[in-house]
């Protein structure tokens, strides 16, 4: 049992998952499944972005879907109307994400908690309205078709599903690796401190505004890059990409997997995507299940699959430690009973 538990938090699991992801197209002969997996990976990248600002830094950003759409539209407009190739447009999308993220972040992050959530909800809606109404730039409600796919090199052609799958997988691995570096760095700790308490963080000498804006810009770059990849695979986009429903979907993925954990966003996205695929006939009514699920999750399992597991493991380890110490001095047992929190945090960063 203990070995199993340790396996779940060890790096071995991550390598095993990666190998599984690499061989997935070889064992699955259903091209549609590979396509679903690739789009799920794209969403997961966006959810990782959301995890930076909402999970680590504790600010509920409801404009995330809007930034996803900005990335998608930058690629669409540049490749279709201005004849750019995909990769330069992809980089431009990331830059656009950073610039808009910075502008919105500087204004919105002066606001706290509810004000921030409401403000970003409105920003998301403004993005949606602009995409729909500004016909000269965005083609209005018709959307943009024939977006250039990512150019391949040599024999690799990214218009085919399997090479595209590997492309997205590479980006996903890069995203997860960056987030894992981030969460272990001083910067990641700083974000956590801000989530726990603005005032405490400030009294430690943390510059709140600079760190929050940094977290926000990182998250919007993730969202815009994911949107750009999405435009490259779907090759048709409309204002609906900016619909707040996508933001709500991403919150669901994040919450199911485990908010503020490293593997949570990926697990949550994959779990919900495949659940939706299985309940295909329910696609339109999926919210009848997901709505109450969100409520039940925040009431009973606010830390999601990964967070829940880590809490359970932390408690188990603590119990065991205090049992061993039972005979010892009472001092030691009070010390260990203080550790589960720290232990959990540690595990949270490694899992």
């Amino acid at each position, binding site marked *: 049992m203990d070995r199993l538990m340790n396996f779940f938090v060890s790096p071995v699991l991550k390598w095993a998952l990666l190998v599984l992801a690499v061989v997935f197209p070889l064992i699955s002969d259903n091209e549609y499944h590979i396509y679903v997996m690739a789009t799920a990976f794209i969403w997961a990248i966006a959810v990782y972005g959301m995890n930076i600002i*909402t999970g680590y830094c*504790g600010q*509920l950003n409801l404009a995330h879907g809007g930034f996803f759409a900005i990335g998608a539209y930058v690629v669409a407009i540049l490749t279709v109307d201005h004849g750019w190739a995909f990769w330069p447009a992809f980089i431009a999308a990331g830059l656009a994400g950073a610039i808009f993220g910075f502008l919105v972040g500087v*204004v*919105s992050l*002066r*606001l*706290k*908690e*509810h*004000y921030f*959530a*409401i*403000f970003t*909800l*409105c*920003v998301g*809606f*403004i993005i949606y*309205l*602009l995409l729909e*109404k500004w016909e000269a730039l965005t083609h209005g409600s018709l959307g943009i078709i024939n977006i250039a796919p990512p150019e391949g090199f040599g024999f690799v052609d990214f218009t085919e599903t399997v090479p595209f799958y590997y492309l997205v997988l590479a980006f996903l691995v890069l995203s997860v690796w960056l987030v894992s570096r981030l969460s272990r760095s001083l910067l990641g700790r700083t974000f956590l401190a801000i989530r726990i308490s603005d005032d405490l963080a400030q009294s430690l000498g943390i510059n709140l505004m600079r760190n929050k804006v940094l977290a926000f810009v990182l998250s919007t770059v993730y969202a815009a890059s994911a949107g750009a990849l999405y435009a490259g695979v779907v090759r048709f986009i409309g204002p609906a990409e900016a619909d*707040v429903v996508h933001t*709500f979907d991403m*919150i669901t993925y994040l*919450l199911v997997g485990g908010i503020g954990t490293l593997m949570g966003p990926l697990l949550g996205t994959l779990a919900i995507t495949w659940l939706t695929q299985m309940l295909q006939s329910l696609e*339109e*009514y*999926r*919210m*009848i299940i*997901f*709505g*109450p*699920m*969100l*409520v039940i999750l*925040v*009431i009973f399992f*606010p830390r999601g699959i990964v967070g829940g597991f880590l809490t359970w493991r932390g408690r188990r380890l603590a119990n065991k430690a205090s049992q061993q110490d039972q005979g010892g001095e009472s001092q030691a047992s009070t010390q260990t009973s203080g550790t589960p929190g720290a232990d959990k945090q540690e595990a949270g960063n490694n899992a």
Partner: protein
Amino acid sequence: MDLFLQQVLNGLTLGSIYGLVALGLTLVYGILHVPNFAHGALYMVGAYVAYFTMVDLGLNYWLAMIAAGAVVAFLSVLCERLVFHPLRNAPPIHDKIAAIGILLFLEAVVQMYWGADFRRMPTPYTEILHFGGLTIPAQRLLIIAGAFGLMGALHLYLKKTMTGATIIAMAQNREGAFLVGIDANRVAMMTFAIAGVLAAVGATLFAPINLVYPAMGHLLIMKAFVIIILGGMGSIPGAIVGGLIIGFAEALGGFYISNEYKDVIAFALLVVILSVKPTGLFTKGVR
């Protein structure tokens, strides 16, 4: 001049509906400090209940309004009991997410039962009145009178009755209210019920000159949030004044600036105001 007055009248109509919805939102915020994202969905359910009481059951407009008020008040109290009450000590991000969950659920249920079609709600008041150069549809007059009547009734209820006073007391100072023996559960349920009734009545008044569809609450709830930020979260006069400001800004802006972008006006106003003054216009301090 007549055109201008016509726009003022439109602004007043919009403003009174916005005010009603924002009032419910601000009351709930004052008591529980929850930004209830599901409030727009309750408004939408209210419109559907009224529509189907009138069309399917063939009852009259006023009975439909009462039915809508009752059903939505019940739903609203249910949300408080089942969702917000258990989360009262959770981090603030949790009840926002839970409210989004309720919103998604209600919309999906309505769409499953009644489909996503746009429907037009009938009204017995279809006359068009003329005053000088002004043309005023009777329904618009009804909206203005109904909304302000309801606001007046709410004001009397909060100021003159004991239960009303408990709501105000709890909004002003939670601990103080507990100290003098006010039952927090009762006050919270009462507040949610009132918010539900306000939303449902607002929906029944507004639906005949608008359309009924599952996403009808989206825009409205966001505008209501803009309004309560403008007016100060938790402030009752602020919600009414804010509602009128947004109503007029939209009617006049939509007429004189651009009809295409009139829905952006409220949000642009919010962005500008919060950029200059991050605590909102009429707030005294940050909560």
